């Protein structure tokens, strides 16, 4: 029982980070320099998504099979991204 308790993350801390990052993102969106704004916003967004996956969805503690299934979805999306990136500009010309 103690082992299970110890392995549980502090959800309040995770929530605090998510809320704090949301505030930071909102403030950064008003920064005019694209070179700073774009990577920082994408980075913060990615960190928030990973935090939810690892701690709220328990992928950090759960079976690796669930992680592989989620990653499989991302891998399957890659050809979709490639095809749409090529096709969409062509369609837009007509």
């Amino acid at each position, binding site marked *: 029982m103690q082992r299970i308790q110890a392995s*549980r993350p502090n*959800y*309040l801390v*995770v*929530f605090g980070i*998510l*809320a704090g990052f*949301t*505030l930071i*993102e*909102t403030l*950064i*969106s*008003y920064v005019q320099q694209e070179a700073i*704004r*774009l990577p920082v*916003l*994408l980075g*913060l*967004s990615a960190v*928030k*998504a990973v935090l*939810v*996956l690892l*701690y*709220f*969805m328990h992928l950090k503690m759960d*079976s690796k*099979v*669930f992680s592989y*299934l*989620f990653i*499989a*979805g*991302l891998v*399957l*999306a890659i050809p*979709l*991204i490639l095809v*749409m*990136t090529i096709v*969409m*500009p062509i369609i*837009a010309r007509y």
Partner: protein
Amino acid sequence: MNEAVQPAPIAQEANTKLAMWVFLGGEVVFFTALILLLVLTRFVNTGYQEQFRGYLSIPIIAANTFVLVTSSYFVVRSLEAIREGDARSMRINMFAVLALGLLFLGGQAFEWTSLFRDGVDYSTTFGMPFFTVTGTHGLHVFIGCIWLVYLLLGHGKIPFTKENHLGVENFGLYWHFVDIVWIVLFTVIYLI
């Protein structure tokens, strides 16, 4: 002989949770296509800032994002409560999730109404992908709210316990995923 055909609870639990993750894997592909529609529409057309983003209220949507992130926290609290056998605390946290989910939908309805009033609708270049993506996401939140009502009311005949709380866990996975999609959408649509 009878024992041999009895369902094994742990295996069944693993199967339903596995099915939920398979579903979420499919949802990743689905939402990637929708987000791509939005991103590529911006790439092949000029004037996103003037024709569209200028009409969006970032502080209101940031507050709405905070609402959804907070709801995710209450979902995980409800799961933790039932894992410790506290059904009452689970229900209180679920009510909080439902209230926050409905608040999020209310915020989205307010945003859409404001956009319609400003003349931004589905027929505009940037309105089409925006309403498609945010509408699909909103539909997911709405389905989540119905699911939650079912868990709170319809599931009363088979109450969740410390040992049997898979319904809460699977709902949580779905809700957190919807939260992740919004985290991405918030950045792609509103902030960049």
